[in-house]
């Protein structure tokens, strides 16, 4: 063939339709915003029940995680995420989905190797680097407090 790798790269880029950023961002804003508004609504509800602010905030996280896990188990969450994109991925609900989905998928390999071993296959890197980053920022904060 006469085409070079460099020429082909240009051809492939031209032929490949790109992501529709505008639409994706709008959908992410709407879905993410809805989830956050829902969280705020739940918080207001808990506060109205006389639960203190700190406990109510923690309960909101727990409620949203449970809701996401249930929707994942009912095979609904991935269909929402198809439209919501980053709007369903970034909030805590996305994190819950990323743990429940592999737990369901790898059940066929058993409870230990399957569910236990694969449950954090997607969330694992977030946990590793999230923890590492928090240690790093903690150290920086501690360093600044010295002076």
């Amino acid at each position, binding site marked *: *063939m*006469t*085409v070079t*790798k460099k020429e*082909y*790269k240009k*051809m*492939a880029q031209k*032929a*490949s*339709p*790109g*992501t*529709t950023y505008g639409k*994706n961002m709008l959908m992410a804003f709407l879905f993410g915003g809805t989830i956050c508004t829902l969280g705020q609504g739940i918080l207001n509800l808990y506060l109205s029940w006389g639960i203190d602010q700190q406990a109510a905030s923690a309960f909101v996280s727990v409620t949203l995680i449970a809701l996401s896990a249930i929707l*994942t*188990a009912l*095979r609904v*969450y*991935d269909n*929402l*995420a*198809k439209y*919501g*994109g980053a709007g*369903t*991925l970034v909030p805590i609900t*996305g994190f819950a*989905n*990323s743990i*429940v*989905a*592999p737990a*369901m*998928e*790898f059940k*066929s390999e058993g409870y230990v190797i399957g569910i236990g071993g694969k449950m954090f296959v*997607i969330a694992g890197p977030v946990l590793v680097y999230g923890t590492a980053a928090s240690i790093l920022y903690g150290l920086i904060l501690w360093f600044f407090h010295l002076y």
Partner: protein
Amino acid sequence: MPAKIGKYTIELQTNPAVVGYAAVVGKKEGEGPYGKYYDQCHNDTTLGESSWERAESRLQNEAVHLALHKAGLQNTDIDCIFAGDLLNQCISSTFGLRSLDIPFLGQYGACSTMAQTLGIASLFVESGAALRAAAVTSSHFCSAERQFRYPLEYGGQRTPTAQWTATAAGSVILGARSQYLSAKIGMQAVTFGRIADFGVKDVNNMGAAMAPAAAQTLIDFFNDTGTAPQDYDLILTGDLGLVGSELLDDLMKQEGKDISPVHNDCGLMIYDREKQDAHAGGSGCGCSAAILCSAILQQMDAGQLHKVLFIGTGALMSPTSSQQGESIPGVAHLVYLKA
């Protein structure tokens, strides 16, 4: 005996006969534009099995049994079976066919496996090593997703260039021409492709990764045989999808061999891309196998198609190679069928 013509093409002088074929598909494929051509459509994608791997094994087993039944043969009549799929160690083939008691040769050519197994089976029959040989392959959306991508229920988005792995299996039974003088469809020639890697790294754009391999094999075949695209009724590629098909047509035009009037792609045929949300089209070993072993061979048998070039296209990466930043090598094998 097989005779080499040119550098890469092998002519099958006795024209081994296509004596039976069958395609078995899942729900989404059954609802696609070619739904009426398949021998069996399963509305339950688990096929009543406890794992996706078992479901895919069963697809393959059913495809062979149906093809045997249509050919009026039994498993003991087959001298050799060539089979492959996308799963690690080709377990859909080995587990699906273990009860058949036929000498088994596992093949891996990624999504080019239907053309690869059909090509080798033709050579076995042509050379007299087998009186009858079978070629079969399968893929399953759910088993492929869990091996190559994400768990099914994970909330991710697919890119516009991504393709949908077909839940399908196809099987062809070939017989020696001396035994099947009146069989309509015969295998004419085989061109096994060379690996082509043009540096595409995006695993969500496999059509672009495979198009140069398809172009290379087609050019080899045309050069070896001294023929041109217009000499054929249909040039059918495996699963290049929307992006890869456009790139192949462009590459061939640059080489002065315009295939666009006679080119179609199984990945573009198997789904209604817009209505069925298949993005750039279908993919997987079962995609090209199901289209070839249903509509195409049926139309050839009915005299609607005569000279068909079938080019299976495979992307030869693994999740490990992709994670290590390697590009995607492509391969394409061609079989020439005539009715």
